[in-house]
């Protein structure tokens, strides 16, 4: 068995892994050491947290965390509700125009909301939703990807389960809630992880919509914080960057298996 994987190949895999993780390790190095060690790699360089303190004071990170948290949860809640209902209709109902409607949904896989920033901005403006967290979230809630993924998963559930639930007196929504939603739990988990990491990191559309501290998510806050005009030094930017990515990165390190499995699950479709 050993023969199938030579040492040289393992070495190459490791070398690439080290190259791949190096930029992130470097950010950690710069953030945790005093400024003058930013490019001097001394094993005995003193550790410090002062950059984190400075970063924390220079930008309202707590507010940004809160905004991102609200944004991500709001989008996920909306997506789970809307996509579940739509996927159920596509998976288990016969109605005229189903194929056409489904094709119209799939259009969004290609034309994501950030491509249409110009028009969507004026739509939001006419509803008075500029500079609101709801405004950032609204275009993403009816997610074609979510509808597609859940529909695939609902279709694999045997009809007999549904019939049994109907015999017990469940209505249309009862069947959905008691049979389909519990059976599709792995798909929900996968979709939720993909959605949260996408919207935690999303930047362009939130940038367009927001213009105040009260609504800005972390990515937009970080972009303003890191702008050269703001005159912040390199180590502090590293610290700020790590502050912004810490929650998601920590979650990823802790639940690595679930993350990779989720992306796999969502990737196969």
């Amino acid at each position, binding site marked *: 068995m050993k023969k*199938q*994987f030579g040492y040289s190949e*393992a070495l190459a*895999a490791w070398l*690439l*892994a080290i190259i*791949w*993780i190096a*930029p*992130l390790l470097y*950010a950690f190095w*710069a953030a945790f050491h005093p400024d003058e060690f*930013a*490019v001097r790699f001394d094993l005995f360089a003193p550790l410090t947290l002062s950059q984190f303190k400075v970063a924390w004071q220079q930008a309202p990170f707590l507010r940004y965390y809160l905004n991102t948290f609200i944004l991500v949860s709001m989008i996920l809640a909306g997506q789970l509700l*809307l996509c579940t*209902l*739509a996927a159920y*209709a596509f998976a288990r*109902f*016969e*109605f005229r125009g*189903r194929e056409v*409607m489904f094709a*119209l*949904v*799939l*259009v*969004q896989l290609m*034309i994501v*909301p*950030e*491509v*249409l*920033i*110009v*028009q969507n*901005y004026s*739509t939001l403006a006419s509803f008075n939703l500029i500079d609101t967290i709801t405004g950032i979230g609204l*275009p993403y809630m*009816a997610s074609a990807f979510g509808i597609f993924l859940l529909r695939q998963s609902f279709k694999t559930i045997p009809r007999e389960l549904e019939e049994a639930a109907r015999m017990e007196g469940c209505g249309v929504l009862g069947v959905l809630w008691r049979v389909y939603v519990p059976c599709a739990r792995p798909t929900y988990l996968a979709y939720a992880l993909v959605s949260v990491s996408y919207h*935690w*990191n999303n*930047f*362009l559309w939130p940038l367009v919509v927001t213009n105040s501290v009260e609504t800005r998510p*972390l*990515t937009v806050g*970080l972009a303003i914080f*890191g*702008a050269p005009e703001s005159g912040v030094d390199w180590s502090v930017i*590293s610290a*700020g*960057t790590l502050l*912004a*990515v810490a929650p*998601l*990165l920590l979650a990823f390190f802790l639940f*690595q298996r679930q993350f990779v499995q989720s992306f796999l699950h969502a*990737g*196969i*479709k």
Partner: protein
Amino acid sequence: MTGVYAWLLLMPATILLAAFTHYPTIATFVQSLFSNKTVFRPSRFVGLDNYRAIFDDPVFFKVMQNTLLFALGTVPLSIILALLMAIWVNKHIPGRGFVRLAYFTPTILPMIAVANIWLFFYTPDIGLLDQLSALFGGQGHNWLGDSRTVLGCLMVMTIWKEAGFFMIFYLAALQTHPPELEEAARLEGASRITFFWRVTFPLLMPTTLFVFINALLNSFKLVDHLFILTKGGPDNASNLLLYYIYENAFSFFDTANAATLTVVLLALLATLAILQFTILDKRIHYR
């Protein structure tokens, strides 16, 4: 009766999709045929004038060239690396968990954070890249300020960010390959290289096509890093289509131009989507 239920279930999602995907797509087309509204003159129908204007705009050609270069420079290399990563991670190498973690981690970072980290690598003189080249007697170089190197720098960073994501699709595909295939090949005395070119690679062909088209689609939307690293400069040498749309709409307040450019982007995306449906339809069933 079931029809009524179905439409009720579909209604909330349909309304939002119509409002933020279908309506704006059509509205963008319409708007690209009208002039900008000014204080003195209302918006009026101008036919294809806006299109003529962008085709007379040298920046537009520069931006299109950059966009295509960026796509064709990042996508194939990311895919090759992704395939290599997937094959390695799929094997029982020592420390596989760490290797997979290392490959996948950049995917989980926001592009803004990535740009912040890489900005320092590219900073002239004090940046890491120049420090390294100084060790070998190199001169300091303004990597992001030089129109010859700026796009390349952005590509390297993007490949680093995206390869781990594409690896996932290959891993998913590799896990469906039965292990007997490799055992049989070994019994036949085939080397690993032969096995890869004769068995693994052809079996992965549909995945490669799928990833390739989706990676191209995705590359047109990757502009976040420009806000941190270059703002499209120097002299539009790193400007990309979506960023140029953003500039037109929100810095130059030229809505007509922005709408016309959006139509160009939509046409690009539609072409790729049609390609995806015609090439891949045989394998990926949407029903």
